[in-house]
């Protein structure tokens, strides 16, 4: 592992994710598996462009992890990638992989999302390394991402352990210059090695393996003392800063002349190296994002720290300015004063610009109707979570992947049943809404539960044949693999039928009348149902139909159409001072939802010009 990582003369600007893919390829990775999730998605998208690596989108992170463990047990270097919350899904095999070890190296990338740019929480997954006793690497930029990745495989094989490779949004999605190297590969095994004691985790073997795991953690801590990624940079000895990952860059800018212990391997930590660094500086500060992960470990070593988490925050992202401000609170000398300058007033009263459904999005009709029905909507993770935003305001809970159906089921089980003769109050009804990819990820078992346990919820699967939120990745229902090969397609109605669902309807989500009629029917019966709203993602499949126009003479400016929340619609005041709506022809995708909402029939497609029709 102490080998120098070779490079050629070639340099490229790569994102952290692209550099991880490059490093994995250079390290001779044979197999990579992942479920898309921001900010991790582009790793496999980039790796799929290289030859000689099998890459797949697995239905979820647990499956991806198990595919990776199998590959490494079979003697092929494996890469498994996910966003931070994905590791929660994959935690079961991840912990076991620590016990069984491997034949060829395995690296697990956890791309964390401090600041929650695109996530439901900002958990600090460095904790998983300690929890599972596996070594943890944290690159600071793209060059390190490539270099650390190559070394991670050597480390993995040297210590017979998976390696947790933790990035954040700012390492995964930042670009910097990377020197490239060549691919090295090992000969594959002809057959899997059978090692009952090591690879079969029944209690008698697991008890023995736990001893191995704890000794390995001790050995890794020894190794950390000389790991080339833990680097001391002595400067002004009045100030010592221990940091890791992207935060190193912020701290270098905040206090340019300070002394740094820049940790690339952050579990286990090098006790002697840290104590030695402490002895060389007057004051020691630990600067890290989210949890006081390094700080707590360093304090437990008995090393005195002059400032840590109490100076900054447990929440959100740091940047050079916030690091400078936090160290200024401790009167640290040598802070870059430009970063402490007072900011001008923020412009006030500006309209916010939240993400929204694209013009023509097939989810728009569903949420327009759900809002009207006033049912409780248990949502899920995907573009359709935006049904919670104005003007729809019709998703009422959303926690994690696959939870819509199971949470709706639990809720319906405790809500008071309607009186027999009372007119059903739809506000007491619960509807689950889940996308196709999320359904395959972990909604199938939830639906199985509803049927098995006599549930009575209505479950809408909004099937747009892609994994839209993360940029349109293939999935088990899209008919193609990550590598672009045609594949078997999950038949959702047949799958639901096989699970025991008796009421299954497939609807056109653009036909508001049909959506409302079918949902009212299903809400009226006291048994579970699945409603499949099937239409392709307009962004991914570039769906455009002839555009609609507003007849300004008929438009009364009632704003009913604006309830579609479509960016192609614009409210304006005409020359006569009257409120009107217009449709931007460049944005309109011709879906027609707004025209169905117009009480004046003022929105229509213009008749085709003479001689142009077929």
């Amino acid at each position, binding site marked *: 592992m102490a080998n120098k990582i070779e490079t050629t003369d070639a340099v490229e600007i790569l994102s952290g994710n692209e550099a991880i893919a490059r490093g994995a390829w250079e390290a001779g990775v044979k197999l990579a598996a992942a479920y898309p999730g921001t900010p991790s998605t582009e790793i496999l998208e980039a790796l799929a462009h290289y030859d000689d690596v099998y890459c797949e989108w697995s239905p979820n992170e647990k499956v991806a992890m198990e595919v990776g463990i199998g590959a490494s047990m079979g003697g092929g270097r494996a890469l498994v990638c996910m966003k931070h919350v994905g590791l929660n899904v994959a935690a079961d095999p991840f912990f076991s992989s620590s016990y069984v070890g491997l034949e060829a190296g395995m690296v697990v990338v956890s791309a964390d999302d401090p600041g929650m740019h695109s996530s439901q929480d900002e958990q600090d997954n460095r904790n998983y390394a300690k929890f599972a006793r596996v070594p943890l690497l944290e690159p600071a930029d793209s060059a390190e991402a490539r270099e650390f990745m190559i070394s991670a495989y050597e480390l993995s094989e040297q210590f017979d352990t998976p390696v947790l490779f933790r990035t954040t949004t700012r390492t995964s999605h930042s670009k910097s210059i990377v020197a490239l190297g060549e691919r090295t590969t090992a000969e594959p095994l002809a057959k899997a090695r059978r090692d009952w004691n090591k690879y079969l985790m029944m209690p008698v073997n697991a008890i023995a393996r736990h001893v191995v795991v704890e000794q390995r953690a001790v050995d890794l801590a020894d190794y950390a003392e000389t790991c080339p990624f833990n680097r001391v940079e002595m400067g002004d000895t009045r100030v010592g800063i221990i940091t890791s990952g992207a935060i190193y860059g912020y701290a270098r800018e905040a206090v340019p002349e300070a002394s740094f212990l820049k940790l690339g391997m952050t579990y286990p930590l090098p006790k002697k190296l840290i104590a030695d660094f402490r002895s060389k500086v007057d004051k020691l500060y630990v600067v890290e994002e989210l949890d006081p992960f390094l700080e707590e470990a360093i304090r437990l070593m008995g090393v005195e720290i002059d400032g840590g988490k109490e100076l900054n925050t447990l929440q959100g992202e740091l940047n050079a300015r916030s690091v400078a401000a936090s160290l200024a609170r401790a009167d640290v000398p040598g802070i870059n004063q*430009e970063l402490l300058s007072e900011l001008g007033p923020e412009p006030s009263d500006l309209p916010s610009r939240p993400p929204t459904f*694209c013009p023509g999005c097939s989810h728009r009709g569903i949420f327009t109707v759900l809002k009207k029905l006033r049912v409780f909507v248990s949502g899920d993770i995907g573009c359709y979570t935006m049904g919670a935003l104005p003007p729809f305001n019709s998703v009422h809970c959303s926690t994690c992947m696959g939870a819509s159906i199971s949470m709706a089921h639990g809720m319906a089980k405790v809500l008071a049943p309607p009186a027999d003769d009372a007119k059903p109050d739809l506000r007491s009804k619960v509807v689950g809404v889940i996308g196709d990819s999320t359904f395959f990820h972990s909604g199938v078992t939830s639906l199985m539960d509803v049927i098995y346990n006599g549930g009575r919820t209505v479950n809408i699967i909004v099937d747009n044949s892609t994994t839209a939120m993360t940029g349109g990745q293939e999935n088990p229902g899209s008919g193609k693999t990550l590598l672009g090969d045609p594949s078997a397609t999950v038949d959702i109605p047949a799958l639901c039928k096989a699970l025991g669902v008796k009421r299954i309807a497939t609807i056109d989500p653009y036909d508001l009348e049909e959506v409302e009629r079918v949902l009212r029917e299903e809400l009226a019966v006291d048994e579970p149902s699945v409603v499949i709203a099937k239409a392709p993602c307009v962004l991914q499949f570039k769906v455009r139909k002839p555009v609609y126009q507003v007849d300004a003479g008929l438009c009364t400016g009632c704003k009913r159409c604006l309830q579609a929340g479509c960016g192609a619609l614009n409210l304006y005041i005409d020359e006569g001072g009257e409120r009107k709506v217009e449709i931007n022809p460049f944005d309109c995708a011709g879906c027609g939802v707004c025209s169905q909402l117009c009480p004046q029939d003022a929105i229509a497609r213009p008749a085709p010009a003479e001689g142009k029709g077929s």
Partner: protein
Amino acid sequence: MTARPTTNVLLTGVGGQGVVLASYVLSQVAMSEGYDVKQSEVHGMAQRGGSVTSHFRFGDKVWSPLVSPGTADLLMAFEALEGLRYVNWLKPNGVLVYNALRINPSPVSAGLATYPEDVDSLIRAAWPTVKCVNANELAAQAGTVKAANVAMLGAISATLPFAPEIWEAVIRKAVPPKTIDVNLEAFRLGAASASAPAAECKTR
């Protein structure tokens, strides 16, 4: 040779405007001139019509991929409101270059909020060194409105220390082959517009 300090550029706009491609061109231009570069953007939920920012920095050695508030040398706004929103990211003598384009945020489309009337005056009141560009118009003139991002690059090109040939060489490689001429023309029109008086520019 004295160390070249880090230059900070913040690009802001709306998902789908080509902010990321513009940022890519900037990075390649700076790297080809021997600078260290770092660039950062956010994917995922930030798209879908939401606000988009991209941070671009170059110098002899760049540590952080992020521009800090109050330190931007250049704020390049692909939409007027998204220029106004980020003015306090500029450092005291920083320059704001914005596209005279209005794209309604979803709360405005839904009739729940209003787009600021006379956004140009608000921008000029909020910041002293402002340059307005009709990037979409210039791009349409060049052949396609899709090249508005490249017209914006033309408009800011004079504020950065790179020769026109460098920009053009990078743009040739960055855009689809069939659109090279249109994009180069958009770049030139953008660059030429930099000398036009800003007062005649009105967001619509």
